[in-house]
């Protein structure tokens, strides 16, 4: 019992993943800043911001539905932290692994977007409404390629469980090379999921202030921002375990360090991508995703299906 509470609250649960998330945000911001010729924040900036926001007054718009408005960030944070519990870190097993946990992780990672949508919608701000509608529109464009990219890797491994996928690719490391298209598709879809440039349309600062977050302040804003950080870490961890399952049989300390390095690699990839593009319009984003990214994901699916047929014989 105590062990389970420790796992959920401290490691690898809430506390660990929160601090890791804040550090990941720092690394993302630092890389972003260095690429832009800026100095960037000090290492404790994100933690200081979080603590500062916790201490600030929280305002709820008088027309907003206060309960839903306050509950949405907590719900979003909880679902993204829960998703982390299903991801194997230094070995093949995760804390709560079962036979179809890939689907559960993907589902849990969709929930924050929906929670933020509901919170933003009920804040009744016009900017938030436009932002939330945009984020839902965007959801349909990136979610399909992301699912197809990750599930095609699972298809080749012939299992729906993350530990199964990891085990399969550790046995046949060369098969990872077939998933490169899927990896690229997933990283691009991730930019949409995490609302980073060029897909930061739902929170486009110069158009709709902060999108769904416009009316949030204080504790709720702190938790929302933490949710985004945790989401970034969990998504990167998911991609790391599906597309780069190396070194899982190493001793736990080295394996764990390798796991962190893999996540940081994906985060730096995201930082690099968000440095070199301008923000697209929502119609251009949908076009891009359905015209190029979704067909590429389908191609990956096709490759893996054919490959699977060849391998069986």
């Amino acid at each position, binding site marked *: 019992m105590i062990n389970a509470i420790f796992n959920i609250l401290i490691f690898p649960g809430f506390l660990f993943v929160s601090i890791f998330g804040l550090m990941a945000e720092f690394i993302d911001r630092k890389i972003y800043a260095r*690429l832009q010729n800026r100095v960037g924040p000090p290492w404790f900036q994100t933690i200081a911001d979080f603590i500062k926001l916790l201490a600030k007054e929280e305002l709820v718009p008088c027309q907003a539905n206060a309960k839903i408005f306050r509950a949405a960030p907590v719900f979003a944070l909880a679902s993204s932290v829960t998703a982390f519990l299903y991801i194997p870190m230094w070995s093949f097993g995760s804390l709560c692994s079962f036979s179809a946990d890939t689907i559960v992780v993907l589902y849990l990672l969709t929930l924050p977007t929906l929670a933020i949508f509901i919170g933003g919608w009920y804040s009744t701000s*016009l900017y938030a409404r436009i932002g939330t509608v945009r984020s839902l529109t965007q959801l349909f464009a990136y979610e399909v390629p992301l699912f197809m990219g990750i599930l095609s890797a699972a298809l080749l491994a012939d299992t729906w469980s993350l530990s199964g996928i990891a085990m399969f690719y550790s046995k046949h490391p060369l098969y990872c090379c077939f998933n490169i298209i899927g990896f690229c598709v997933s990283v691009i879809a991730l930019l949409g999921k995490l609302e980073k440039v060029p897909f930061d349309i739902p929170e*486009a600062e110069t158009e709709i202030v902060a999108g769904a977050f416009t009316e949030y302040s204080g504790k709720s804003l702190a938790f929302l921002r933490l949710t985004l950080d945790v989401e970034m870490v969990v998504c990167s961890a998911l991609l790391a375990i599906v597309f780069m399952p190396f070194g899982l049989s190493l001793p736990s300390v080295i394996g764990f360090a390798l796991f962190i390095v893999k996540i940081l690699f994906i985060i730096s990839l995201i930082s690099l991508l968000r440095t070199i593009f301008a923000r697209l*319009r929502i119609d251009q984003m949908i076009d891009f995703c359905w015209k190029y990214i979704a067909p590429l994901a389908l191609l990956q699916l096709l490759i893996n299906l054919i490959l699977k047929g060849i391998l069986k014989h």
Partner: protein
Amino acid sequence: MENKDKFRIPIGPQHPALKEPEGFSVALKGEKIMGVDIRLGYNHRGIEKACEERPYIQDVYLIERVCGICSHSHSTCFVQAVEEIAGLQLPKRASYIRTLIAELERVHSHLLWLGVAGHEIGFDTLLMYTWRDREIVMDILAMLTGNRVNYGVNVIGGVKRDITPSQIQDVLKGMDLLEERTKYYIDLAMREETIIKRLSGVGVLSHEEALSLGAVGPTARASGVARDTRRDDPYAAYAEVSFNVITDNHNDVYGRTVVRLKELMESYKIIRQLLKNIPDGPLSVKAPRNIPAGEAISRYEAPRGEDVHYVKSNGTEMPERVKVRAPTLANVQAVKQMLKDRYLADMPIVIAAIDPCFSCTDRMVTVQNFDTGNHETISWDTLRVYGINWHKDRGVDFSNVTK
């Protein structure tokens, strides 16, 4: 809400996309813009009136503060008008120095604009890069004039600061660096997919519309209107340098970007010619304290477009009337046209593309009900009665208070 699927959102007076207070009320249907109402007048400072209450010498400094970016434009434009009334002949060297500062100002303004445009389309890297490079020209301006903005080089009848040979070398060095960087940005604008996607076809202003709406500066030139005061009505030393008037036929925000970037290259060319041919001589002629009665209109090609100043003197040391027509006032009318049938996402960049300077524009106030569009005015007495009744309804009686 007018009907179910159409609603109005305010962009401004406080909004992250706007660097100055300005009201845009946008009627939206989904993401599509159905109509825009523009409201000026949040930052009216009464500079024209203040000019009429101060001697000309102080006015030069005051008028320089009309705009933070094109401060030299306004002071030169004003000084030119006063010099015309007083019949002063500007020394050659002074006119060269004025032109030099004017072109350096254009360089810094266009680089600033490029960064702002990058920010408006969510390309913050471009903002950081251009503003870093802009520091080169800011440093040059600080070296030549002592200030990064509001240079204070103009006096009536000439300029205040000379330029030394070693400074000329420093400026030339800076121009080489900037030219290299600008070539890189031109290359970037020509090739970077997301920039082209966000800018081309956005904010279209056709050649005819640009003419009929009276657009000026890069906004007009990007619609193929070859209008440039520097060439059409040369002032200062512009008659003695050769340069091209850049025009473009894209008619959209992309065209405006290209025009500004190419104008930067022309500015470097002009600066090099000026520094090569700068003559020796006095810096200023003595101006009388009392300017003789008369009036003059002065035109000046500011970085944002044609700036017009009108000065009327009555023989005393203070002007009778000063009127400033900042370029943004001429361009802001076109914004409504540019936003027709566009998306909300294009709004910031379309507004930014005219390089608006709203504080400079706020000269005149029209009274209009923001929601109904009525032009009705309310007298002071009516307002007072309304106020008294408003408080009465809430249990406070002010009706015994004398006027």
